């Protein structure tokens, strides 16, 4: 078996920014030919959206990160000539992804019903912010807003902190991952039964699913999750679960019984707590741990904890991670050259197939870079 299981599939990506395009990137890395359909004027808005003002060429480093290994077809979806070209591509495509606000693709005449007429076997996959019904359907599907509305910001940080968002676009990324799952499952059915599918996900439903353990516990207890007063690692978990300062850094300690940790670290003050106290008195227990751990080095504590088989780790930043053996052996980095030979370093796909890592070294496309090639290969050839 090939290590690129999606070879031969054609995906048309009518998406911008991160949610939909992260799904396209995963499909591309597993072997699909992913073609971004971009407006002729400025294309995917992400092209002009830099992080820390980092640019590779006319396009931001961020755009290059999310859109490597894809092609670009520029088209004005309001122009009948371009629409007819796009419809010819749809005839050849296996999958369409789109993350416009509800109703926009229909305005272009490219809603699911219209597309199904052209290609009944297509997998049509779409991302919205909040679904297509209800009072929130037209709200902006923006990551921080979704985190704030879904309760997620009350899981992180300590009890007295303001609500603390995740410092990464979790809604976009998890929703993109769900879209990929739906697309692939629908492709499996298509292969067996010859039928297409409409796959829909929303940022809100994806973030609710992400919190399914916490929500199920909330439904059962009626109590909203409470962050611990200090060293909160997960609002549902007992002491010692959390991160603690030591004399020279920070260490993380996961689940362990109070007695084991007390014996291992030789902290007599922990003796007064029973295992039944691990959740209800977690603030006090964490406090005792904290006062003791700060007196000696991370190495001192980690050596003791590891010797007893307790779950612990040194807290590292990216520089420290990068120097570690555990990171190097993964080979998560890859270097890519853009069309002018400018090199960027980024990550590869995290999935290995048949023992092989999946690298995708083609750079992100220039806007409309592949129009001619795509017309030649997918439209002209099929007519002749």
């Amino acid at each position: 078996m090939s290590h690129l299981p999606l070879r031969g599939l054609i995906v048309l990506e009518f998406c911008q920014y991160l949610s939909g395009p992260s799904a396209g990137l995963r499909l591309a890395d597993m072997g699909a030919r992913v073609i971004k359909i971009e407006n002729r004027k400025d294309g995917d808005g992400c092209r002009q959206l830099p992080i820390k003002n980092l640019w590779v060429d006319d396009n931001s480093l961020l755009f290059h990160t999310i859109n490597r290994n894809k092609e670009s077809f520029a088209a004005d979806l309001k122009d009948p000539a371009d629409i007819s070209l796009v419809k010819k591509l749809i005839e050849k495509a296996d999958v369409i992804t789109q993350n416009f606000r509800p109703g926009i693709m229909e305005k272009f005449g490219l809603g699911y019903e219209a597309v199904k007429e052209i290609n009944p076997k297509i997998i049509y996959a779409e991302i919205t912010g909040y679904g297509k019904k209800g009072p929130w359907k037209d709200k902006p599907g923006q990551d921080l807003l979704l985190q704030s509305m879904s309760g997620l910001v009350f899981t992180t940080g300590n009890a007295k902190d303001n609500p603390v968002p995740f410092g990464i676009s979790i809604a976009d990324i998890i929703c993109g991952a769900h879209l990929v799952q739906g697309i692939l499952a629908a492709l499996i059915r298509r292969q067996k039964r010859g039928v297409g599918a409409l796959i829909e996900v929303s940022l809100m439903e994806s973030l609710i699913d992400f919190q399914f353990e916490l929500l199920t516990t909330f439904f059962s207890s009626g109590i909203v999750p409470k962050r611990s007063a200090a060293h909160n690692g997960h609002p549902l978990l007992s002491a010692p679960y959390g991160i603690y300062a030591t004399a020279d850094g920070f260490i993380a300690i996961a689940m362990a019984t109070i007695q084991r940790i007390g014996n291992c670290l030789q902290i007599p003050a922990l003796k007064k707590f029973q295992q039944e106290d691990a959740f209800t008195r977690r603030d006090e227990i964490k406090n005792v741990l904290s006062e003791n751990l700060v007196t000696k080095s991370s190495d001192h504590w980690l050596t003791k904890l590891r010797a007893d088989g307790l779950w612990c780790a040194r807290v590292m930043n990216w520089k420290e991670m990068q120097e570690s053996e555990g990171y190097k052996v993964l080979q998560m980095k890859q270097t890519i050259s853009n069309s002018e030979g400018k090199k960027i370093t980024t990550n590869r796909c995290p999935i290995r197939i048949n023992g092989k890592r999946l690298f995708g070294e083609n750079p992100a496309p220039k806007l409309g870079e592949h129009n001619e090639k795509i017309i030649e290969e997918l439209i002209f050839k099929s007519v002749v």
Partner: protein
Amino acid sequence: MNLLEDIIVLDFSQFLSAPSAGLRLADMGAQVIKIEKPGSGDICRQLYVSDVMVEGESTIFHAINRNKQSYAADLKDEEDLKKIKSLIAKADVMIHNFRPGVMNRLGLDFETVKAINPSIIYAEVSGYGNEGEWTGRPGQDLLLQSVSGLTWLSNNNNDQPTPMGVSVVDILAGAHIAQGILATLYQRAITGEGALVQVSMFESIIDFQFELLTCFYNDGNELPVRSKINNANAYIAAPYGIYKTKDNYLALAMADIVQLSGLIGCEELKKYTDKSDWFSKRDEIKKVLAVWLARETTDAWIAILEPADIWCARVMNYSELINEEGYQVLNMDILVKTSSGLQIKTTRCPIRVDEKILTSSIGAPLLGEHNQQIEKQFLIS
């Protein structure tokens, strides 16, 4: 037809990472059979959280393992192992998340399994991969967050490293292994060939940070600097963050500071006309904003900002969320029932197929509940 109808999955995994993948496959129509140790089963059965228990088992076990079957087997017992091998011969997918080496010792490693069933998809989730010095380390969520730099992204700059309060590493690794399984099942539907699919929690949590790590790699290894107050993303300019109001909180995404200052009537912010200051001076801008926004209620601010197309939202906890029409219209809640009659409320699969939500009322299995049924189905004894 369900997307994954007729797909049989043997799930040897425990806790959350790989079992969350099994749940997704089950919800899309696969028959997912948990292979569990007699007596104790999936350790997650005993992992109580917040002291909340359902039928003597943890709420999270019920959330993760609904819609699955349970087959109890002692993998160290020859008879049981023989039965398992008969199941493997008929399965489409097997999943495990044992530490590296365990499946070899049990005689259920990929090479052995492939000899029994050449078209099987063999999927494994590890903590740190199968090579190098870290392979034996525990693949636990908080620890992976801690070694991967992730804890330096959330909360304010003077705060300690702050882990994300959801098991994000487990969930992402589960999402990735599900992707790999599905992609190879697709190829198998064409070629008939099996595959080995591997994901590690470490690779998954690095992938999660790919946008920011790419900045780090190409920017002379500059570490992230969280803003001093109201941080929501170390890489995004003011006003991006959550602010206290007179009665609650307000989330503000990207916005033009000058326009914002006009709308909320804050003269002091008018001077920030240079867009690059919105990043470089974000701490001082946020400080002014935080004081100003505390003067009015969340509703009052939203009434001003939303009509002007400023991206903002009310901040809600679970109690507030579930009472909103916008939440209820999604129909995310489902009731599942265990074979002993216990009902549990949980949430459904987030994917909709052909305009239908995917639901199931089948609760998590009792340990070994389906041994007889499965032996009958697969004609083993």
